[in-house]
C-alpha cells in the first residue's frame, strides 16, 4: 500500500503536466495510467502547438490562452518544439469576409500575423497548390506529443514522483463519503496496487466520466471522434491551415519525418470503440489535396482515430464547442479536469495544482512556465537533417533509431512492451510501420533477458495485430505493396503461427 498526497489518474498531457507542476512545487504524488503515456487524445492528435489563430474568431479567450502557452512552450521546450511556423491559406472561393474577420480577431487577441502573397507562400512551401490566392503567416509550432509527456514525467521522476503505467484503475476507495485512494490492476501481472492520497485528480480525458462514476460523481462530456492520416514523408515544413470556418481535414502538420493531416468530427459514445472509416480517410485526403495537391497521390502510411474530450454543450456543430477547459470539484476529495487542448496543457495543470495548493493551504507558486523541461539534452532535436550525421548501428532504418537508443530505453524504463520503445524512440513510426524493426527490437529485448520466452511471440503477434488496425485504412498503392512484403516476411519467411 502506497501513501501519498495526490493521485493523478491519467497519463496524457494534462496528467503529466500536473505531475511536473506538483513535483516542482514539492508535493508528493503518484500518477496512474492504464496504457502508456499519451494513450488518449494526446497521442492521437496532430501534435500541433497552436498559435491560437484558429480559435480567434469563435473563442477569443481560448485563442489568447493558446498563444501565451505557445510562447511559453517554445521557451521551456527549446529542443523538443519545432518552430515550423504556419500558414493559413486562402483558396479561390474561400470567403474574403472570413479573412477580414480572421485578421481582425487575431489582432484583437494579440496574435502576430503576416499577410503574404501566394508567390511568397509557395516559396516557403513549394508543394502548395499554385492556385492559392494568399496566405497568412502565423506562429504555429509542432511537437511530438509522446515526447512532451515523457519530458514532463521526467521532472516528476527526478523529484520522487511515483509513476505506474499499464495499470488500470478499477476502484476508487471511499471512506465516509470522501475519496481516500484507488485500487489499480497491473495489466501485465494482474497484481492489485492500493494507493492512498488526500486528493485524487481525474485527468483521464475521454474517460473522465467513467472514472468519475467510480466515485459516484459525474462529468458531462461530448465525445467526438477525430481521424488523422499520416504521410510517408514531409510534404511541407510549415503547418498548413485552411482559411475558413473550422471544418474537416483542414490542417496539415509536419511532425518529425512525416505529415499528419486531418481531421474529422463524429460524435461517439464509447471511447474504447474507435473505428476509422474509409470515408473519413477519403475526406481528409480530398481536403488536404486542395491545399497540397500532391496529397491526392502521395503515399499514406497510417490512418487512425482519437477522441476529443469536450465538455458537454448545447451546440450542434462539434467544431464550435468550446475548447476551453474546466476544473470540477466533486466535493469529495476528487477533482476532474476536462476539456482543453494539447497546447494549453501546462496552463490546465497550473490551474489544477493552484487549486490543490489552495486546498492544502500551501502558497508555493507555479514555476512550470519558467523552468525548461528536463531531459531535453538526450533529444536529437531539430533540424531533422542533423540526424544524418551518423548512420551506424541503426535498428529502425526508416526513423534512424540506433541499437544503443533501444537498449538504453529498455534499461532505463525497465520496459517489457515494444510499444513503449516505439513511443520513446519513434521506432516503427516510419513507412514500413515497424515491419522490420519490431522483429529486431523484440530480438534485442530477448537478448537482454527482459522478456520471457512466451512473451516475445505473444508480443510480436499483439504488435502485428495493433499495427494492422492503424494501417488497414491506408492500404492501397505503395503502402499495400509494403504491407504484402511485411506479410510475406512474418507469415512466410518467419513462419509465424496463427494465434490459437
Amino acid at each position, binding site marked *: 500500500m502506497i501513501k501519498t498526497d495526490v493521485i493523478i489518474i491519467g497519463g496524457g498531457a494534462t496528467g503529466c503536466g500536473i505531475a511536473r507542476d506538483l513535483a516542482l512545487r514539492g508535493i508528493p504524488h503518484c500518477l496512474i495510467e492504464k496504457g502508456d503515456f499519451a494513450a488518449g487524445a494526446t497521442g492521437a492528435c496532430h501534435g500541433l502547438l497552436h498559435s491560437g489563430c484558429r480559435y480567434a474568431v469563435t473563442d477569443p479567450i481560448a485563442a489568447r490562452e493558446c498563444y501565451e502557452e505557445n510562447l511559453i512552450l517554445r521557451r521551456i521546450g527549446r529542443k523538443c518544439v519545432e518552430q515550423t511556423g504556419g500558414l493559413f491559406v486562402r483558396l479561390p472561393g474561400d470567403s474574403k469576409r472570413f479573412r477580414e474577420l480572421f485578421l481582425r480577431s487575431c489582432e484583437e487577441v494579440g496574435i502576430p500575423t503576416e499577410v503574404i502573397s501566394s508567390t511568397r507562400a509557395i516559396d516557403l512551401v513549394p508543394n502548395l497548390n499554385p492556385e492559392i490566392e494568399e496566405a497568412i503567416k502565423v506562429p504555429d509550432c509542432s511537437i511530438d506529443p509522446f515526447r512532451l509527456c515523457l519530458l514532463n514525467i521526467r521532472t516528476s521522476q527526478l523529484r520522487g514522483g511515483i509513476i505506474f503505467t499499464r495499470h488500470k484503475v478499477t476502484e476508487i476507495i471511499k471512506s465516509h463519503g470522501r475519496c481516500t485512494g484507488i485500487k489499480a490492476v497491473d495489466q501485465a501481472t494482474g497484481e492489485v496496487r492500493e494507493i492512498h492520497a488526500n486528493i485524487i485528480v481525474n485527468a483521464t480525458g475521454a474517460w473522465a466520466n467513467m472514472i468519475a462514476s467510480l466515485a459516484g460523481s459525474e462529468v458531462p462530456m461530448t465525445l467526438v471522434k477525430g481521424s488523422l492520416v499520416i504521410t510517408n514523408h514531409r510534404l511541407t515544413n510549415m503547418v498548413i491551415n485552411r482559411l475558413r470556418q473550422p471544418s474537416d481535414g483542414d490542417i496539415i502538420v509536419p511532425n518529425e519525418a512525416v505529415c499528419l493531416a486531418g481531421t474529422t468530427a463524429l460524435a461517439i459514445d464509447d471511447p474504447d470503440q474507435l473505428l476509422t472509416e*474509409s470515408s473519413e480517410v*477519403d475526406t481528409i485526403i480530398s481536403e488536404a489535396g486542395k491545399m497540397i495537391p500532391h496529397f491526392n497521390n502521395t503515399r499514406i502510411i497510417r490512418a487512425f482515430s482519437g477522441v476529443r474530450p469536450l465538455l458537454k454543450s448545447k451546440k450542434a456543430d462539434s467544431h464550435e464547442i468550446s475548447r476551453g477547459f474546466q476544473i470540477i470539484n466533486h466535493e469529495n476529495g476528487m477533482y476532474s479536469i476536462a476539456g482543453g487542448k494539447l497546447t494549453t496543457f501546462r496552463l490546465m495543470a497550473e490551474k489544477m495544482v493552484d487549486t490543490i495548493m489552495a486546498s492544502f493551504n500551501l502558497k508555493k507558486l507555479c514555476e512550470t512556465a519558467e523552468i525548461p523541461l528536463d531531459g531535453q539534452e538526450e533529444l536529437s532535436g531539430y533540424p531533422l537533417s542533423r540526424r544524418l550525421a551518423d548512420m551506424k*548501428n541503426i*535498428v529502425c532504418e526508416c526513423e534512424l533509431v540506433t*541499437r544503443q537508443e533501444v537498449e538504453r530505453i529498455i534499461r532505463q524504463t525497465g520496459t517489457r512492451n515494444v510499444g513503449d520503445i516505439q513511443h520513446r524512440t519513434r521506432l516503427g513510426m516510419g513507412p514500413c510501420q515497424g515491419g*522490420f524493426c519490431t*522483429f*529486431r527490437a*523484440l*530480438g*534485442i529485448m*530477448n*537478448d537482454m533477458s527482459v522478456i*520471457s*520466452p*512466451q512473451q*516475445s*511471440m505473444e508480443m*510480436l*503477434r499483439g504488435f*502485428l*495485430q495493433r*499495427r*494492422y488496425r492503424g494501417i*488497414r485504412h491506408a*492500404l*492501397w*498503392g505503395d503502402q*499495400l*505493396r509494403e504491407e*504484402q*512484403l511485411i*506479410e*510475406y*516476411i512474418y*507469415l*512466410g*519467411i*518467419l*513462419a*509465424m*503461427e*496463427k*494465434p490459437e
Partner: protein
Amino acid sequence: MSVIEYDVVIIGAGVAGLTAGALLAERGFKVALVTTGEPTACLSTGCVDVCSRDHKPLSGIHDLPPEHPYHLVPEKITRDALNYFQTAMMDMGIPYAGSAEENRFILSALGTLKTSCLVPLTMKTAPQDNKEGIHIVTFKGLKDFYPGYIISRRKNTKFSVYDAGVYHTMGIASHFEEKEFFEKFIIWLGKLNIDEDKIAFPAVIGMESAAEIINTIAILMGKPVFEIPTIPPSMPGRRLFNALKGYFRKKGGMIYWSWPVEGTEKAGRLIEAVATHSAGRPNSINARAFILATGSFVGGGLTATREAIIENVFNLPVHTDGPRETWFDNNYFSLNHGIGRAGIIADLSLRPADSPWDNIFVCGGILANTEILKNGCGHGLALATAHVAAQSCAEYLSNEI
C-alpha cells in the same frame, strides 16, 4: 526506335517467368525476358513451397478450393515441374533436397517449423521436430538474427557468438567467401565444445559457396549443419534467383533489366510488342507471344488504387472479391483477406479468361485465388503454372508458323 524480334517475351523475372523462359528457350524459341527490377524471389527463403495444407503436398493441392489455379495444372505436370526444377538447380550448382511426395520442415528464425517441399541442400538437415538439440552459431551485432527467439521455443538449444568484424548479412556473407576469413573462423569453431546434435547458422555463411562451406563445417565438426533463412537481405533467396537467371541464360534467353513495360502495340486480337522508355530512345520489343509473370502486389504485377485493382502491363480485368472495404478482414491473422484472392483468372491454357488477346499467357503470383500464405504454395505454384503456360505458348507458336 530500336526494334528487335523474338518469338516470345516474358514479362517478369521471378520463378515463374524465368522457368517459363527457360522451357521455351530450350525448345529452340527466341526468348527475351523484360523486368523492372529483381523479383520477390530474391528475398525469399529460397525454398519451394508446394502446398502446406497436407503432409503430402499433392493431396493438399487436391483439397484446395475449386477456383484455385493449381487445378489448372494436371498433377503429372506439377510433378514434372518440381523434377525439372531440381535437375536445373543441380545443373547450376545449388542442389535441392526433397520430393513432391511429401513436405518437410525447415527451421525459421523465430524457431517455428516452416513447412516446405524442396529445400536447398544447405537446409536439408534442419530438424523435423522440436526434440533435437541444436547449437546455433551466430555473429556479433548481426541485427537481423536473434537466437533468443529460437532458444525460447526449443529445449536443448544453445548458442555461441563469433565476431566477424562486420555486422550485417551482406558483409558477413561476403567475408565467408574469403579464404583467410574462413580459415580463421574454422579454427575458432573447432575449439567450441558442442554437445548438441546439430549445428545451425543464420543464412549468412557465404554467398555462392554456402553449400561447400556448410559441407566443410559438417565434416570438420562431425555433425549435420544447416542454415536458417533470415529476413531480407536473403542469401538463399539470392542464390535461387542467380541460379534460375543463369539457367535461363544458359538456355539462350536474353534478359533486359530495368525495363518496365510502359505501353503495348496491338493489332486486332494480337499484342505485337511491348515498349518502354529507357536511356534516351523509346524502345520496343516485338514478339509473337507474351507471358505475363509479373507477380502480385509486391512483385509489381498488380496495383491497388483507392477505387480499383489494376493489372499494370496489359490492363487485363482483375478479379477482386469486392470494393476496398472487403479487401481486408478485421483480424490480421485470419489469412482470409479478400486481397489475397485478387488477380487474373485464367483458363486451362493459362490464357486470361475472357481475354481480348489471343497471344498472352499468365503464370505465377499474378493469378487469382492463389492465397499464397494461407496455402503455403508460392514457388511451387509458380513452377507448375510456368510449365503449363510454356506448353500452351509453345503450341500456339508452333501453330502460328
